[in-house]
């Protein structure tokens, strides 16, 4: 967000304005002339995709709020009113509901990309922690948003999640009643969740600005994990290079998103949420939205109430300490043969926890989730610190330009056998 600017105001008015508020120069330096490593791959377009999704969610959400009413006896009907009567209401609602899932798909890819290429390591610790904060805010926003249609899953999801706080010794019960504004989840809860659901996305937007500021201050990491040595040789200007690549990534993501909106809009949702909230009857099998499932599995794997809650929150908190838990000096998994294996094992464990979170807490599923929960923490607390000490990384390229050159040399050799192959 600072430096790098080559912006020269054209014309008298532009110069007059720029000397009073240098905002055009700021935008120019952060979105036009900002140098991006030339070896970034498509996994790096997810930052732009996430920014787009935040915009999509805020826009569609503001419009939905114009037709929605947060009042327990009618909220379910108001959502159906949007689906049936409001012009394009069904589209806006399906955009918003599926948008939440798309947002999480994108953020998980973004996080795992950061894990793979070691994007959390010095000097990007603050950048990473800001990302963890955004992730936490996203979870809070998504959870409260899911309560608003006031279906069975909304109601019981809210009940279960707020009851997590009752695990706190002594004051737990009081805290939960204060969260509810009553003796159970009810209309006051719905109203405060609506207010916060409207507020939090703007807080996310604020932290996103800090996240991008930190990113542009330290510069982007890249698939080879070596710092930019020469702006001229290692980087390209953000516009048009990264811009056009990001837009292409966004449109491909929109294709994926549209498939869900138009063809399988209820795939990510739960049928029980089309039943109005009923405080007298819990659905037979309640599960949170898919993006919470790994943490839900961790919660249920511990047979103690407080212990389960602590384990679940620790599973997120441990991410914030990652920059110091990973002791390796090498960033990218490209040059860490052992870490690469453990990365994929971890990815499978995370998906496995997600699957177990969706299954009933009984029999083999409980044992499996205990094993995977243990592995989740072992990965961060034991494997990563030790790996840095024992792993022998492959030799790092001298610079990004060298890495690119080496890869292209390889392609030329391979090209002899398959002439149509391109880098």
């Amino acid at each position, binding site marked *: 967000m600072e430096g790098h600017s080559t912006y020269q105001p054209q014309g008298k008015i532009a110069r007059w304005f720029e000397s009073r508020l240098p905002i055009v120069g700021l935008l120019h330096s952060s979105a*036009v002339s900002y140098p991006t490593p030339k070896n970034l791959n498509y996994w790096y377009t997810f930052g732009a995709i996430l920014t787009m999704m935040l915009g999509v969610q805020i*826009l*569609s959400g503001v*419009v939905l709020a*114009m*037709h929605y009413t947060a009042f327990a006896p009618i909220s379910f009907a108001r959502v159906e*009113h949007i689906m*049936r*009567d*409001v*012009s*394009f*209401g069904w*589209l*806006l609602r399906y955009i918003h509901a599926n948008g939440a899932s798309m947002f999480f798909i994108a953020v998980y890819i973004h996080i795992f990309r950061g894990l793979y290429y070691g994007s959390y390591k010095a000097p990007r610790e603050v950048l990473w922690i800001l990302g963890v904060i955004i992730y936490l805010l996203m979870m809070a926003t998504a959870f409260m948003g899911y309560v608003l249609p006031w279906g069975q899953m909304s109601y019981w999801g809210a009940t279960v999640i707020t009851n997590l706080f009752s695990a706190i010794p002594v004051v737990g019960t009081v805290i939960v009643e204060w969260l509810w504004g009553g003796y159970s989840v009810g209309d006051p809860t719905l109203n405060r969740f609506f207010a916060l659901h409207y507020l939090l996305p703007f807080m996310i937007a604020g932290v996103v600005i800090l996240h991008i500021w930190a990113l542009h201050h330290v510069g982007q990491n890249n698939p080879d994990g070596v710092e930019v040595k020469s702006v001229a040789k290692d980087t390209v*200007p953000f*516009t*048009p290079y990264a*811009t*056009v690549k990001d*837009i292409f990534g966004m449109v491909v993501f929109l294709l994926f998103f549209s498939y869900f909106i138009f063809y399988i809009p209820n795939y990510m949702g739960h049928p029980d949420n089309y039943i109005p909230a009923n405080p007298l009857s819990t659905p037979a099998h309640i599960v949170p939205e898919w993006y919470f499932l790994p943490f839900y599995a961790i919660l249920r794997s511990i047979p103690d109430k407080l212990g389960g809650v602590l384990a679940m929150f620790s599973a997120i908190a441990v991410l914030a300490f990652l920059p110091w838990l990973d002791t390796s000096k090498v960033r990218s998994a490209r040059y860490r043969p052992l870490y690469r294996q453990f990365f994929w094992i971890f990815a499978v464990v995370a998906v496995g926890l997600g699957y177990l979170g969706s299954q009933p807490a009984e029999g083999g599923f409980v044992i499996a989730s205990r094993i995977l929960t243990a592995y989740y923490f072992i990965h961060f607390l034991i494997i990563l610190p030790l790996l840095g000490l024992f792993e022998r990384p492959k030799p790092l390229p001298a610079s990004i330009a060298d890495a690119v050159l080496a890869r292209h040399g390889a392609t030329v050799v391979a090209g002899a056998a398959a002439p149509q192959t391109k880098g």
Partner: protein
Amino acid sequence: MAHTETSGTNRRDFLYIATGAVGAVGVAGMIWPFVSQLQPDASVLALSTTEVDLSPIQEGQIVTFMWRGKPIFVFNRLAKDVELARAVPLNQLIDPQTDQDRVKAGHDKWLVVIGICTHLGCVPLGHQGNYDGWFCPCHGSQYDSSGRVRVGPAPLNLAVPPYNFVSDSKIVIG
């Protein structure tokens, strides 16, 4: 994509223009649902008729009903109110219109108007002002016994809603 001078590309290049144009169409298409949702929704559009029973309205009485969220004045006019309204030469009116045009033939004593001042939307008070009709408390417009504006700032007569007599004592508005 505005600055494409770098790396020797041509601004007039067909590919860039085509991509930009298709992108612009896409943005316009995406905006439409967000604008369209502002219009009155299907449940509002369906609530467009109201039935009014005229039999309890006394001679000389003005009764207010609700139609599409707006007040409707139904005025059971005395013979003198009708005479007064029909005696006014059209050239004295701000918005010239005969009383006959504002009522249903055969039901001349019944005046049905939307009770919203044509100036800035306040509800005028009945049986007030100097013209045997309405007076708007907001900015002083006055209407006569035919609901026609006689003193500004209102520019137009009180509007007549679409309505029909289904019997001598019953109308359907809308």
